[in-house]
């Protein structure tokens, strides 16, 4: 947070590396969890480590103990990549020895959420428990720069690993998403939070990221099935979502207007430590509960980022900024509850904008499907009633079928495939080639 604040203040670059190393040692009574956080690169340029240490220790106490410094050999690989360390802190977590795996999961989730909106910073995570060492590098495959009004640009990780649907052949499938900057909503600070010392202007900037991207496939049917809400502090650090507020959010949304049957919170447990809240979405009037595999819509998930923004003309020192952010984080539930109606309306608007595109696709699909039925029936009508054997055989041979019954099925499948898979190149998509499906080599068939 400190480095982010300093960086924000100086408008510095957002690239570099962050190392989080967790390891255990056996103390006199129990296993203890040690943690080293190291940073290097332009993103923390100008950080004065010695000046920060006393403040850090004060803010971390009484949760941690000091512990011996890490062996420099452990950091050599990191410094080789990113240059000399700008920041290094090692501490021992109290009472963490009995739930290592839980800590590991929390830290990993936190760092993933961090990496989502700080995609320029490469995050290295290393765990050494006993003899076992596990290392991760949170790789960001695709980044996208977002520039909200009056704010520093954000570098988001927009990569999406969703597999393309079956009808996508030989064409580029966008491997990323395209963030959409939404509304910036002013938030009023509740009196009790002001009493704690939080003043100035507070607002929340919404950014929506829908994945996978199907912009290049205008006829593909889509279905929003998952919404994940992530909240970030003014320093762009993930903060735990306020549990009660987000739990009650679905009830505040007008699902009917959104064309949805219901939205319900899918991730109840561990919300207090989780940086995100996940909702599952069920569409309205699910007419075909068991569609053909080829007609299943592409399932999309929506990432809704809530970037908190705070400014106070009477705050200029880093310590004051950090104090304000800690107040915001600590009282986030109260702040959002104080602005419940406005925040719910803004979230509903973001959802509505996302679903507008989906509903538009659905209407287009209905038109195409209706036309396809007529095209197929008219074509088969002519082929079936023709007495021209050359013509009939040519049609059957083209589609490699035996009779008009098979021809009808084959034409239907082909028309659906070419229509759904219609591709319109978009310069802003992150396309890759998809492997072509192998074609069969069957002999010519003649109708008897």
């Amino acid at each position: 947070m400190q480095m982010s604040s300093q960086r924000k203040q100086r408008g510095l670059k957002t690239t570099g590396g962050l190392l989080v190393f967790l390891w255990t040692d056996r103390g006199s009574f129990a296993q203890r969890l040690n943690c080293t956080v190291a940073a290097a690169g332009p993103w923390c340029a100008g950080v004065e480590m010695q000046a920060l240490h006393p403040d850090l220790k004060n803010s971390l106490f009484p949760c941690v103990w000091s512990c011996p410094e890490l062996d420099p050999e452990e950091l050599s690989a990191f410094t080789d990549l990113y240059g000399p360390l700008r920041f290094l802190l090692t501490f021992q977590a109290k009472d963490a020895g009995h739930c290592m795996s839980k800590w590991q999961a929390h830290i990993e989730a936190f760092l993933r959420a961090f990496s989502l909106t700080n995609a320029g910073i490469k995050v290295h995570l290393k765990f050494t428990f006993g003899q076992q060492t596990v290392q991760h590098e949170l790789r960001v495959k695709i980044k996208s720069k977002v520039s909200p009004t009056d704010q520093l640009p954000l570098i988001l990780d927009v990569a999406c690993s969703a597999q393309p649907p079956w009808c996508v052949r030989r064409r580029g499938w966008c491997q990323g998403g395209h963030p959409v900057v939404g509304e910036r909503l002013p938030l009023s600070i509740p009196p009790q939070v002001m009493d704690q010392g939080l003043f100035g202007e507070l607002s929340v900037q919404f950014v929506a990221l829908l994945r996978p991207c199907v912009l290049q496939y205008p006829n593909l049917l889509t279905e929003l099935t998952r919404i994940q809400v992530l909240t970030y502090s003014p320093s762009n650090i993930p903060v735990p979502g306020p549990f009660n507020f987000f739990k009650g959010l679905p009830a505040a949304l007008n699902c009917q207007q959104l064309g949805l049957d219901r939205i319900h919170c899918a991730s109840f447990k561990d919300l207090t430590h989780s940086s995100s809240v996940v909702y599952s979405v069920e569409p309205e009037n699910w007419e075909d509960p068991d569609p053909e595999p080829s007609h299943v819509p592409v399932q999309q998930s929506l990432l809704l980022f809530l970037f908190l923004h705070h400014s106070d003309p009477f705050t200029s020192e880093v310590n004051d900024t950090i104090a304000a952010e800690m107040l915001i984080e600590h009282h986030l539930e109260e702040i959002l509850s104080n602005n419940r109606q406005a925040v719910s309306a803004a979230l509903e608007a973001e959802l509505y904008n996302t679903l507008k595109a989906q509903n538009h696709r659905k209407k287009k699909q209905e038109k195409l499907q209706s036309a396809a039925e007529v095209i197929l029936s008219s074509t088969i009508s002519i082929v079936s009633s023709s007495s021209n054997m050359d013509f009939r055989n040519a049609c059957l041979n083209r589609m490699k079928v035996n009779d008009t019954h098979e021809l009808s099925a084959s034409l239907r499948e082909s028309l659906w495939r070419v229509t759904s898979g219609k591709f319109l190149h978009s310069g802003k998509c992150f396309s890759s080639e998809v492997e072509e499906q192998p074609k069969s080599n069957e002999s010519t068939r003649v109708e008897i």
Partner: protein
Amino acid sequence: MMASCGEQLFSEIDQLRVQLLSSVGVTTESQPEGAEGEICQGGILSRIESVILGIVTSLSKDKAPVLVLPNRSSWANVSFDCAIGLQMSSEHSVTSIKSDCPSSAAKFAQILKILSVIYKLVQSNSYATKRDIYYNDTQLFVSQRSVDSIMDDISCMLKVPRRSLHVLSTSKGLISGDLCYLEEDGTRIDCHSSSAVVPVSSNISGIRNIVSSAKFVMIVEKDATFQRLLDDDFCTKLSPCILITGKGVPDLNSRLMVRKLWDTLHVPIFALVDADPHGIEIMCIYKYGSVAMSFEAHSLTVPSVMWLGLLPSDLQRLRVPEESLIPLTKRDESKLNSLLKRPYLSSQPEWQKEMELMQQTKVKAEIQSLAAIDPDFLTNIYLPNKLRYGGWV
């Protein structure tokens, strides 16, 4: 004496007839009736099958089928020949109807549906009207206009006249005068009676045994004028003659009928239209054809049509009362400018002069304005004198 009066009345018309016949190289023998080399049933089915095979071939290659239609509203596809009129000479400008695009998929489907209907009609040698096709699936077609337009698109795409596709349309035109003929089903039509006007046949190509001693045919723009002439017994006073109206912009059957009369009788064909840009344009459709139907110009146009009246110069010459004259609107002026730029105007200097006069005076008039001179002026004075003294351009 009576015979002498009649000879005098038609002397100019007879001379005109001789001129016309010599200029187009047509003899006085009537043209053989019946099919003018129309494509056979098998050929039509084959052309439709070719379209379907194209669609199947596209799908076999995992490509979305596309129908390519010549753009019937583009001047880029049209050239002018003074012997034919406006004819489609190229397909530079085309419209692609895609099956995978939501905005055009419906039209693609409509075209396929109508093709399948036509296929069955031709196969079974039966007929249907455009109205029948519309009511076959009103949800698909939405409006009669879309069926009408697609029928013409299909006719242009297959290069087959609509009548050969076994789709008929109810005619809106009317005909009266010295004319008898047989419909395809053997019905005898006699247009002599002035009390009962005959609708133009919906199956012009089926008409046979045309009998007429008419000296001329007069195309009347408006139904109101047509009825007025009938009420005034014009066909008796100026007998023998034929009157026909398309009630405004003529439909295909009205145009085919005029063409049929020219091909069969080889008598002068005059146009009586309002002295306004709209009337002039209607007259040009009969004479030179339209851009939309240019692909069928050979069977629709009658380049020999003469402009009898109401001429802009008549308004001055006859001193039509000013209160009967109407100022040109912006739209009129725009249409007049457009007409003056048409490729066929250069071969009609007299028409050009009349239109430029209208441009200068900035007034227009309906045929009914002649009633301001005298109620019977049109039938008793204006038209007889025009015909007697060659007052056409």
